[in-house]
């Protein structure tokens, strides 16, 4: 662990729209410097993506982006980030992804030149290493295509480089379904951390070479998956809350390697990164209901610098095509937050208090996103020497806060859920601080048909 102090030690400074280390983009969006911007993410309706269908695919992207830019201008949005989270085929055949970036960047540039409207593209290739089973994290042939898209996509106008990397996911998936907190910690704080170092050193290098911004990662396949499974009643919410906290240590590695933010939205670990490293973050909540349900719709915005809808299909709704409709919703959400910022600190803190209060008593996953709790948990994490220790300390502190809230009748938590708390604590307490001791403990139990330790340098 390279961070041993908090960039934001006072929870009253962990607010939306401001980050200690703002990021300025090519066309002049300043993220984390007093304005919350919408970040629109979109995907295709059911259709095949290949060379033959590329004209249709491009027509969709042209329509999505041009209408979103026009609507953003009509609504006097201060700016816009468009997240191009590629579909698998666009990463596997990088030229497809690059052509789409070129198309979108052209539209962004036109809006800038003609109207002075500032927008940028977040380029998020797939982590297609997941295609190999077991995944070959360091020797996969898919790495070449991934990095070709990063490199050429950045050159074509992808400004903010991001990824939802999957290091450790093959171990994490099983641990998630078994509510095995040791397995989760091993997957995230050992395998995930090691893979993040490997991957982000290269992404940061691409950003340096191309003059772009190394945005950040997110534990979407971990924290977000846990949340969605908990929403379906498949796993306890208290467990999902701990998964989110533990995922912070792996995502933080991107910043240690040189990522500057804005961090990506889906895993919801952003507030911790902001508290620890001071980078601007993107978050998603109530306006991401188009992609999945969530118990953190309001509190998720409490520290956001970009506000995202996660993903929406390009289908027609009564109000227009869905991405344009969601752009409008995001713009009104952020307009409200920006009005609070303009009104001053006390209004910001009042709005934030309402964001927190409206969610925090109903779900432990919301509880661990309340700024006061984020600072308490993050403060515990930075005391650690190792990532494993940070994960364990953070999770135990989160558990303390959850139990205290239940004890004060300030958190709705079923008896069935509460039954898991002692077991989670017992298992967390059994995790050693040193990575080597933890690896020694866990390696014999790993299913080697599903994971290759050598691909993580083990």
């Amino acid at each position, binding site marked *: 662990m390279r961070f041993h102090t908090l960039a934001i030690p006072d929870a009253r400074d962990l607010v939306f729209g401001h980050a200690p280390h703002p990021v300025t983009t090519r066309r002049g969006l300043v993220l984390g410097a007093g304005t919350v911007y919408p970040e629109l993410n979109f995907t295709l309706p059911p259709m095949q993506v290949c060379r033959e269908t590329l004209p249709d695919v491009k027509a969709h992207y042209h329509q999505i982006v041009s209408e979103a830019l026009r609507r953003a201008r009509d609504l006097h949005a201060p700016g816009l980030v468009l997240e191009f989270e590629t579909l698998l085929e666009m990463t596997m055949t990088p030229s497809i992804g690059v052509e789409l970036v070129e198309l979108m960047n052209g539209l962004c540039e036109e809006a800038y030149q003609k109207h002075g409207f500032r927008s940028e593209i977040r380029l998020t290739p797939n982590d297609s290493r997941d295609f190999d*089973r077991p995944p070959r994290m360091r020797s996969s042939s898919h790495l070449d295509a991934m990095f070709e898209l990063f490199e050429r996509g950045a050159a074509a106008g992808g400004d903010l480089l991001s990824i939802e990397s999957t290091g450790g996911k093959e171990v994490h998936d099983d641990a*998630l379904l078994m509510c095995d907190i040791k397995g989760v910690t091993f997957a995230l704080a050992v395998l995930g951390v090691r893979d993040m170092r490997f991957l982000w050193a290269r992404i940061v290098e691409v950003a340096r070479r191309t003059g772009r911004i190394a945005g950040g990662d997110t534990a979407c396949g971990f924290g977000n998956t846990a949340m969605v499974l908990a929403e379906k009643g*498949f796993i306890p919410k208290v467990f999902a809350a701990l998964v989110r906290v533990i995922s912070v240590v792996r995502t933080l590695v991107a910043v240690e390697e040189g990522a500057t933010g804005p961090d990506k939205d889906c895993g919801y670990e952003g507030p911790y990164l902001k508290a620890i490293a001071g980078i601007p973050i993107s978050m998603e909540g109530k306006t991401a209901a188009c992609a999945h349900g969530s118990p953190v719709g309001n509190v998720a915005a409490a520290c956001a610098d970009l506000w995202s809808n996660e993903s929406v*299909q390009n289908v027609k709704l009564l109000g227009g095509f869905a991405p344009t409709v969601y752009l409008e919703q995001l713009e009104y959400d952020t307009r409200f937050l920006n009005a609070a910022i303009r009104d001053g600190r006390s209004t910001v803190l009042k709005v934030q208090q309402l964001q927190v209060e409206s969610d925090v008593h109903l779900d432990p996953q919301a509880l661990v996103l309340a700024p006061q709790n984020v600072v308490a948990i993050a403060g515990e994490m930075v005391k650690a020497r190792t990532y494993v220790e940070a994960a364990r300390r953070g999770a135990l502190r989160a558990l303390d806060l959850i139990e205290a809230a239940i004890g004060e009748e300030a958190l709705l938590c079923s008896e*069935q859920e509460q039954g898991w708390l002692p077991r989670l604590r017992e298992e967390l307490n059994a995790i050693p601080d040193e990575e080597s001791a933890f690896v020694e403990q866990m390696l014999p139990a790993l299913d080697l048909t599903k994971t290759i330790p050598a691909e993580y340098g083990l």
Partner: protein
Amino acid sequence: MTEPNDLLDRLSTAVELGKTNQAAPYPPRLRGQPGADELCREAIAAGLAPQEILGQGLITGMSRIGERFSQGKAFVPEMLLAARAMSAAMVHLKPFFASGQVRRRGVFVIGTVAGDLHDIGKNIVAMMVEGAGWEVVDLGVDVKADRFLAEIERHPSCVLGMSALLTTTMVNMEKMVGEIRGRDAERPIFVGGAPVNAEFCRKIGATFYAPDPQGVVERLAKLAA
């Protein structure tokens, strides 16, 4: 000596609560007591019919935990532990399957469609179907139609299950169902996944859309009846 019904009750309880064997620490309230492993052996030694052991012991236990899961009173890990306990008992029933004394309800071949890597939901379905007494052939992720067709050759009366989690891989599901239908018009094909719905199921010529794992189990039970 334990009464046969009592033995089957204990076996079904061991499965329901995920008590794999005597040494297993989970669940704490059954610590030190025999698990599904020992109780199944005991049932065979007591001369109980293997089909009865499977039906009244193992499948009953899995049905009970499945019902609690459907009611929101149990989580997936509890289901998984029950499935493990069932597997520990099934080891002892294996010779009876080989000799034909015990039969599964059928064969369910499941996979995530070509181009799609999402498998958590598919794995939960596979586990629940297996617990309901079906033999499950899990083809994994990124599965093309020819692999399903090969399994139809191996298991002529099997039911197929396909999952897709992306709007772009729904298209592959449609193509795959079309390919299979070209060779086998009557094959039951179940489909599921976040972007899939009943209308899409009808449109592509699949047989049944299930919004959740329990829906698959219930429909399969009707098919097997």
